[in-house]
């Protein structure tokens, strides 16, 4: 290389350097804004759910304005591609390059766990409304990871087990997707049900994206059980409901479903095959509570569909964060204060229509509804409340310390009392 070319390349390098440092000062100067990093799976297996997550979040700010204590709120959305490595990379970028004050979002447990591990090292607050992996607020709690308007996987199915037992079910088969979310939801149900005196006859675990359920359905048919606990999400839930009905089991053996089985994201496209199914969740889009009704109709107006758990959760999450930020006058830089505010709030006016607050472990305590899918006047199906179990925490009726001594739910440990 001759000298002239050397000088040329050197000056090019210098230009690059100065441009990048310019960009940095520019972003530092906009420190007036509150920057929220929203991670959502906009591509990959959970793209549909990710979109609803973003919709729910945006709806709240559209309704309530994007200013808190005089500071503008800037929402930076990143796609986690339903992949934990991408989620981690995007989380890093949101914090280190886009200077996000805190992170919210993610759906899949593995993406959430990856991001949680990252924020563990740097203390950035991370608010999860959908990621349900039990241990995040139990055995492996990270103080700056809080389930704002979220829930743990095993929290919701426990009341359902009580409900099933009270309805007379004694012998139950469980069928569930073979991954953590399935193991944990199933475990919550199986442990409670068996401790009440019922028996778990058999447990089926199938890989995610199972096309054909008939081998399981045939066994269920000939087993003589009086109930089936079904834990399915997404396309699996869709297929399961259709095949259960095609198999002629519907109406004969009642389904007790985990919350996602009859979520709007599943039953929106289904007909009568999804009717009359019991499930349990804190949110019930068919509830006649005034605040729930208002939220549902607003959401329908904005996106012309009924809200799913994803949309609702992220909406409530935005509301919760907003309250917390108001309490600390928008000083989100003070992470300790932000976390304290988030943990201390009693959310009064959420779409649930009931006050919600956190337990001591960063997970909300909810009134959990038993819901039944019924048809609405316009032919659409939705979940209507049947019964309510007040003040259900992530530990159910157990003492937290004793509960956390038992192992986490897995395929091999379901807490079943013999």
């Amino acid at each position, binding site marked *: *290389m001759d000298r002239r070319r050397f000088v040329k390349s050197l000056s090019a*390098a210098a230009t*690059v*350097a100065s441009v*990048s*440092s310019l960009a*940095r000062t520019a972003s530092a100067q906009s420190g007036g804004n509150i920057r929220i990093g929203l991670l959502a799976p*906009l*591509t990959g297996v959970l793209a549909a759910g990710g979109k609803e997550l973003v919709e729910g979040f945006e709806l709240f700010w559209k309704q309530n304005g994007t200013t808190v204590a005089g500071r503008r709120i800037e929402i930076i959305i*990143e*796609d986690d591609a339903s*992949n*934990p*490595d991408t989620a*981690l*990379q*995007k989380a*890093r*970028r949101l914090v*280190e*390059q886009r200077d996000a004050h805190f992170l919210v979002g993610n759906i899949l*447990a*593995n993406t959430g*766990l*990856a991001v949680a*591990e*990252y924020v563990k*090292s740097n203390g950035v607050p991370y608010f999860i409304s959908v990621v349900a*992996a039990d241990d995040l607020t139990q055995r492996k709690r990270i103080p700056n990871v809080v389930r704002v308007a979220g829930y743990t996987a095993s929290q919701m199915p426990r009341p359902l087990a009580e409900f099933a037992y009270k309805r007379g079910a004694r012998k139950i088969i469980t069928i569930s997707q073979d*991954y*953590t979310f399935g193991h944990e939801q199933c475990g919550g149900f199986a442990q409670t049900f068996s401790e009440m005196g019922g028996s778990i006859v058999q447990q089926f675990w199938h890989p995610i994206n199972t096309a054909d359920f008939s081998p399981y359905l045939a066994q269920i048919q000939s087993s003589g059980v009086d109930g089936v606990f079904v834990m399915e999400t997404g396309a699996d839930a869709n297929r399961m409901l259709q095949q259960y009905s095609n198999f002629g089991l519907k109406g004969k053996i009642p389904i007790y479903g985990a919350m996602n089985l009859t979520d709007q994201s599943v039953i929106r496209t289904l007909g009568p095959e999804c009717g009359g199914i019991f499930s349990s969740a804190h949110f019930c889009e068919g509830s006649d509570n005034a605040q729930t009704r208002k939220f549902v109709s607003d959401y329908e107006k904005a996106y012309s569909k009924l809200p799913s758990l994803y949309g609702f959760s992220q909406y409530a999450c935005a509301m919760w964060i907003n309250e917390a930020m108001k309490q600390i006058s928008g000083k989100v830089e003070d992470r300790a204060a932000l976390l304290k505010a988030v943990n201390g709030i009693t959310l009064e006016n959420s779409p649930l229509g009931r006050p919600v607050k956190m337990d001591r472990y960063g997970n909300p305590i909810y009134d959990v509804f038993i819901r039944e899918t019924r048809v609405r006047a316009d032919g659409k199906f939705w979940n209507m409340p049947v019964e309510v179990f007040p003040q259900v925490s992530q530990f159910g009726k157990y003492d937290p310390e004793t509960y956390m001594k038992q192992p986490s739910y*897995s*395929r*091999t440990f379901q807490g079943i009392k013999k």
Partner: protein
Amino acid sequence: MISALKRRALWVGLGLFFVMVLPFIFTGYKTSIATEILIFAILAMSIDILAGHSGRTPLCHGAIFGVATYVVLYYVTVTGGSVWVGSLLGILAAVLTAVVFALLAIRTSGVYFILLTLALGMIVWGLCLRWTSVTGGENGLRGTVRPEWLANQVHLYYFVAVCFVVLTYAMWRFVNSPFGQTLKGIRESESRMRTLGYDVSIHLFLGFTVSGLFAGIAGALYAFFNSFVSPSTVALAQSVEGLLMAIVGGAGSLLGAIIGSALVIILENAVSLYTERWLMVLGFMFIITMLFAPQGIVGAVKSLMTRYGRKPAQKSSQ
């Protein structure tokens, strides 16, 4: 000749200088991107040993890479061992995986080799996904494995950079050694090499194993960098990405693999700022490369340089 050597030395020196001052130019998050580029450059170069220099295109290097990452994270976070022993075990595991893969795959060539290595890689992926008690299944394994003095991003960058320089030199020596020349001979004509008395199978086997060793080292470094591993690290997509880096940059040239890695990772990061459809943009880039620069970027630059009079630095460095 001397001037060519001098010129090459100058370029190498300039490259080294750039690698060393990079954290001062690209601070913060960009340093971590640079770290990632270097790690994946090692992976892409290890793939290039097979794809470019031996004429065997493997689709299993993501799996070999990820095995090392898994072992490091398992050893450190689950059994609580030292990270250096863990890294050693991880690299060993990767080499063992490569040995098994090589034994099964080297007798085939062309499409059959691609398909066989793809299937072998998928086995590792399936194992990581289903062997929940060890691999953590879908959730993977998490935990910081970095020792205290590497906690800082810039320190980690320099650590990776030193490894990168040493490994690049090692790989460059390897492909330019008589052994490497034999591999090239096999690439050009297997039957001729056999007639000349070379044991093609042994050479390919060793080539595959050495390539696995380097992929394993990259995988161990990735454990340092990512503090997390899940089945997506050993998935087919990872193998494909590594291979694309090698091909886009220019198969048969280690420099190409480095450029490819930089290009793919920078594009991934830059494009995804503007659109969530960044995979599509990446796809288009690959198609365009294949259409207009089938020899990769390095190949295209070389042919441009020849066309405009200046001979490329003698018989190409790699």
